[in-house]
């Protein structure tokens, strides 16, 4: 396993539908992050996992957004009742330990979500 893997790479969904985005971090990485990248907004932090716990979910924009991580590995970001403003690239990243400990964060290629 080379790097962080995300699926799907592209998703087009109808407004109001639910979507799930998946992230496979680099093996052995305990820290996992979700970011949202949209035009003109840069990278917005969504949520941070350490193991299976989410000590910082301050960036989730609304209660339509949720994420979980199981087995200290795979994570799923779920968006319920999608809206057009949810259209963006959702990036997953992982690191050996937390960013505050000087660990390099490695990013996946992203899941491009379009809500029509």
């Amino acid at each position: 396993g080379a790097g962080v893997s995300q699926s799907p790479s592209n998703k087009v969904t109808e407004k109001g539908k639910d979507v799930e985005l998946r992230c496979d971090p680099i093996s052995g990485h305990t820290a996992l992050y979700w970011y949202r990248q949209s035009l003109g907004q840069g990278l917005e932090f969504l949520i941070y996992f350490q193991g299976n716990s989410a000590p910082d979910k301050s960036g989730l924009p609304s209660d339509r957004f949720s994420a979980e991580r199981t087995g200290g590995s795979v994570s799923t970001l779920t968006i319920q009742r999608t809206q057009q403003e949810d259209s963006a690239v959702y990036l997953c990243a992982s690191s050996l330990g937390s960013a505050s400990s000087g660990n390099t964060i490695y990013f996946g290629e992203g899941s491009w979500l379009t809500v029509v």
Partner: protein
Amino acid sequence: AQRVTQPEKLLSVFKGAPVELKCNYSYSGSPELFWYVQYSRQRLQLLLRHISRESIKGFTADLNKGETSFHLKKPFAQEEDSAMYYCALTDTDKLIFGTGTRLQVFP
């Protein structure tokens, strides 16, 4: 609140010209600062971090605590430097990013 500001959305230069991508931050404490780069059709990757005080691909960045800046510089730009550049800082256990600057280097 912790914040990273990149005032330029787009910076265009000719090959061989000097480049400076601006980054200012607000942070209470001693921040750790980074530059990340995203080349076309590639994933976001770390370019350099201030604590390493290294030069990567000819780029350097100096942390100026008085001006709260961490500008990225290269004396002679190359066409392959064309990319999106993001400045970031560590806030507790996560990175906070600026809005990014697109660098275009023309031949």
